[in-house]
């Protein structure tokens, strides 16, 4: 008979220590599984679509929302599947994301940074959104990207063209599919040289805010590299409606080219005023006067009407692209809404699908896992051709379109014609390029939140 010397107290003590020891890994595991903001626990996952529903870009926001709704439909296996049929990644099966049905909430950015942050915050905190997508302004994109970084959710930017979004203001939780001002300059320059020559005198009218400045800087650098001379760069207040007093000095400046670094209503009005003053009918320095609008959108083209005839610009996407992804997207969007998609619609649609696909490939909604899956991800089939999400700055690199206002549009939608598809290599730059914050620009570290 053996004799044990265990006392009741000792057994209890040992049991407690052993129990804690066994439970410890489970506690850590459970904590890490819940260690990101808005982890979906039910049968659905919520995405937040933050677009301008009121204010001057409401039409653009509405187009983005249509595309986002279409993307959700396709993710949930409804409709014709859209670009799930052409996307080179086959992780998405049309059964939601990671088996969870996709739902969405919407917010109104009003194209104001504070309002956009407030609506994004509400969608994250009250509605449990795991990702925020959309927007039509770089100011809004930078503000919301900062908020998402702090909150620990992924931000898939909508239409934002300023270099800063993936330049000095880049964030680990933020991703931009849309092209940027540098790419516009790099894509436009060879076409400008080909069509207008290397000895032009350019006069810039620039919207006086962050996007306008980076746009001007990029185009000035690209055109001066061609040999062009910059006659003047004039900043115009964002609230300007009548540009006649800015156009009049162009007439006597010796400039033979006007570059309008304007977007939206600014661009429509400044171009209309420039055409009213007969600039396109003038001959200066023995050359036909030309106007360049570096950033185009279909809605701006519609607003500018006949004034855009022959005017060159650049775009992220145009529905007339004939690759398989584009044809599929135009078909899905066109059959559902009766019109071709705009480039802001396409970028939002692509971003929603890219996020969902990254979740599937990462096997988690954890933003850090999703970010890792997106970094250096190469894909095709979403409308832009071969594309890569660069790890260093979370900027997509793909072909850029140079377009021109159509001379004889046959319907309301072919107001722009594609002049050239500039290959991605030609618009690629170093992650520490001076226009993008130089060596000091950093993504920081991914924040998973809670």
């Amino acid at each position, binding site marked *: 008979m053996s004799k044990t010397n265990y006392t009741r107290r000792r057994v209890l003590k040992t049991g407690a220590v052993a129990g804690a020891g066994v439970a410890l890994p489970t506690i850590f595991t459970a904590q890490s599984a819940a260690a990101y903001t808005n982890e979906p626990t039910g049968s659905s996952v919520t995405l937040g679509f933050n677009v301008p529903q*009121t*204010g*001057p*870009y*409401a*039409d653009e926001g509405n187009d983005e929302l249509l595309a986002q709704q279409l993307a959700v439909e396709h993710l949930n296996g409804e409709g014709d599947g859209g670009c799930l049929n052409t996307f080179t990644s086959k992780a998405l099966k049309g059964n939601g994301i990671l088996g969870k049905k996709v739902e969405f909430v919407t917010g109104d950015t009003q194209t104001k940074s504070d309002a956009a942050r407030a609506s994004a915050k509400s969608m994250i905190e009250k509605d449990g959104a795991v990702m925020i997508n959309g927007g039509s302004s770089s100011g809004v994109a930078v503000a919301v990207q900062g908020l998402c970084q702090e909150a620990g959710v992924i931000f898939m930017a909508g239409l934002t063209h300023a270099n800063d979004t993936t330049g000095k203001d880049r964030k680990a939780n933020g991703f931009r599919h849309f092209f940027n001002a540098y790419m516009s300059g790099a894509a436009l320059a060879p076409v400008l040289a080909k069509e207008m020559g290397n000895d032009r005198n350019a006069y810039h009218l620039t919207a006086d805010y962050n996007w306008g400045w980076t746009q001007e800087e990029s185009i000035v650098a690209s055109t001066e590299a061609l040999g062009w001379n910059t006659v*003047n760069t*004039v*900043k115009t*207040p964002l*609230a300007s*409606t*009548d540009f*006649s*007093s*800015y156009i*009049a*000095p162009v*007439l*006597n400046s010796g400039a033979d080219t006007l570059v309008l670094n304007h977007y939206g*209503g600014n661009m*429509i*009005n400044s171009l*209309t*005023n420039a055409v*009213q*003053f*007969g600039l396109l*009918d003038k001959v200066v320095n023995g050359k036909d006067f030309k106007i360049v609008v570096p950033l185009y959108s279909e*809605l701006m083209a*519609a*607003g*500018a*009407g*006949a*004034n855009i005839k022959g005017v060159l610009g650049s775009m992220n996407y145009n*529905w007339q692209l004939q690759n398989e992804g584009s044809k599929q997207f*135009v*078909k899905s969007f*066109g*059959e559902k809404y009766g019109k*071709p998609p705009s480039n802001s619609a396409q970028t939002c649609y692509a971003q929603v699908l890219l996020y969902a696909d990254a979740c599937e490939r990462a096997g988690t909604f954890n933003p850090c896992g999703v970010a890792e899956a997106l970094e250096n991800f190469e894909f095709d089939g979403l409308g832009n051709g071969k594309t890569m999400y660069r790890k260093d700055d979370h900027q997509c690199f793909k072909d850029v379109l140079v377009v021109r206002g159509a001379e004889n549009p*046959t*319907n309301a*939608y*072919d107001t722009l014609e594609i002049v050239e598809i500039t290959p991605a290599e030609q618009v690629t730059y170093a992650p520490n390029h001076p226009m993008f914050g130089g060596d000091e620009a950093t993504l920081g570290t991914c924040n998973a939140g809670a």
Partner: protein
Amino acid sequence: MDAFILQILNGLDKGSAYALIALGLTLIFGTLGVVNFAHGALFMIGAFCAVSLSKLLQLSYVTIDETQKDFLGNPLKVETPYVESWFGPEVGAAIIDWSVPLSILLAIPVMILVGLIMERGLIKHFYKREHADQILVTFGLAIVLQEIVKYYFGANPIQTPPPDALLGVSNLGAWFGFELPYPNWRIVYFCFSALVIAGVFAFLQFTTFGMVVRAGMADRETVGLLGIDIDKRFTIMFAIAACVAGLAGVMYAPINPPNYHMGMDFLVLSFVVVVVGGMGSLPGAVLAGFMLGILESFASTTWATTTLPGINQIIIYLVAIIVLLTRPRGLMGRKGVMEE
């Protein structure tokens, strides 16, 4: 020299819009004592009269053209305006082309109706209330009106071009031996504004109705004691002021494509014009409108913005401060107005 003249012309053009809006504002304030913050919205509704008629004239029937394809590859739906089928392609196209000037015929009754409904339906209930209440209710009305327009027409500006015959530029300096190109439609706009302003002054100066209104503006009570229904006349003046703002909007549509927010863009500046001109002074409103338009134009030149950065954004307010400091009643303000 020609750059200098160009800026004066630009200023006169901009000033025309300010003067027409400020004239209406002053008429309403002088007659009814109401500070109408919905006046910019009336300018916007006028511009959308032009947009509406243009769209109305382009209402089309659809035929299928099997030989052409739309963006989805389906047979193209070709739209032909009804006016072209009713009056023939050439006459129909000409009617569509002249839709903006024709809109004046639509805008006059529409704006009078809008003015009457606005005054009788809402503003008359605020005559005896504080100016702050009037400002709040009319500002609210302006927001409602612009949201209604946005609902039906969208937020994007809508291109509303002038007739082809009035497109392009004229060389105003040709008679003097130098080049001075100026857009034809802007010349038309200035002449039209001058005509409307002259018409309003002539109406007030040379008609019995105008004489009664002027008397009412000077001493409402005494005119009432003479047995004249001055309220009815003032209501009509409100409708006329709405009409003036609307006509300014109609003709402005080809200068800058109308959008739902355009009224607000002009409203604040027009109020500054009224204050600088002198509350209740009709000639003051016109004078200040043109003066501030020209100053704003010069402040936007490269020379001005390089010398004093940001001057283009503050010039009007700067002038307002200087005028009010030196002449508290404005340039041509009347004693006793807003001086309780």
